[in-house]
């Protein structure tokens, strides 16, 4: 009469074992760096300088999508300079959610750059503002807005 069968409380069936965990403070540090760069973009307003900086941010997101957050420049900086100064992490985090969030960031910033390329100058600050909200919430409060979008986007996909 044991209701709490252990295998029910384990990972849902069909889900592969998660990859090795990462220090959750890494993505937050990376988000803080991204947020600072996005603030600078917004302060530049519209123009070639703002577009160039947003392009750099898009490339950082692209690295995150391709290699995971631990493979971005912020991730490397965190491991080289920040993590040695911190106590060991209390718990490790699945690297897939922040990586998905990097993809959302890339889509937002990339859309802004494409629109700017076809003449919508205000797309650069608008995209930077949207991305800044997400990066700021991640850095300040640990909320991964991009991760939250996953299921919402998935719901739009056709049923099967």
């Amino acid at each position, binding site marked *: 009469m044991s209701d*709490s069968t252990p295998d029910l409380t384990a990972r849902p069936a069909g889900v592969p074992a998660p990859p090795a965990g990462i220090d959750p403070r890494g993505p937050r540090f990376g988000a803080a760096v991204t947020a600072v760069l996005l603030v600078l973009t917004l302060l530049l*307003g519209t123009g070639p300088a703002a577009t160039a900086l947003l392009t750099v941010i898009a490339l950082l997101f692209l690295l995150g999508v391709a290699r995971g957050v631990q493979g971005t420049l912020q991730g490397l900086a965190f491991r080289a300079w920040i993590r040695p100064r911190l106590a060991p992490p209390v718990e490790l985090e699945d690297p897939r959610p922040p990586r998905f969030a990097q993809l959302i960031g890339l889509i937002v910033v990339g859309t802004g750059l494409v629109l700017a390329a076809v*003449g919508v100058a205000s797309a650069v600050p608008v995209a930077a503002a949207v991305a800044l909200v997400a990066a700021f919430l991640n850095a300040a*409060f640990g909320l991964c807005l991009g991760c939250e979008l996953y299921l919402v986007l998935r719901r739009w996909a056709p*049923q099967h």
Partner: protein
Amino acid sequence: MTIAPHAASTLADSALPIFDAATSGVAGRAGLVLILLATASAAWWIARRRAARFRPTRTPRGAAGAPGPDRSDATLTGTELGAPLGSRATFVQFSAQTCASCPQVRRVLTSLAESEPGVVHIDLDAEAHMDLVRRFSVFRTPTVLLLDADGAVRARTSGPLTLDRALAALAPLPAPALRSTHV
């Protein structure tokens, strides 16, 4: 400021003269950035306060808005869940791979199910159960439904969860010993 006056950008600029004035200088832009960050912080704070505790679900009649198909079945069976229900209560957790706080909620509910007799924790991969995700209007992971002994959804929450909140949600549901003597 005379970069290819495109229809959309001129519309955005002329529609908001105050915004236009504020964005013309660095100080104005810095002010807008501060307002943006303050608004985001406030929204986060409000959303967190709302989500942090279990909210009782309304009666099926008034359940969350749109008259979807089968609004009446706010009840789940062990067959639908693929696992038997608890004799007192069942926590149904919707998880996803891209979910940062799912492991924390899983740990809380697993330990709760081990310590409280008659309480079961069922962890579902949301992607593999999109029918339930749509039926119960799950928009984010983790979302947790609290079912009573009959499988009726009594409360729900989403986001990070503490053991105290989970215990508080469990409190109104009768313990199995009480049920067996009175039923």
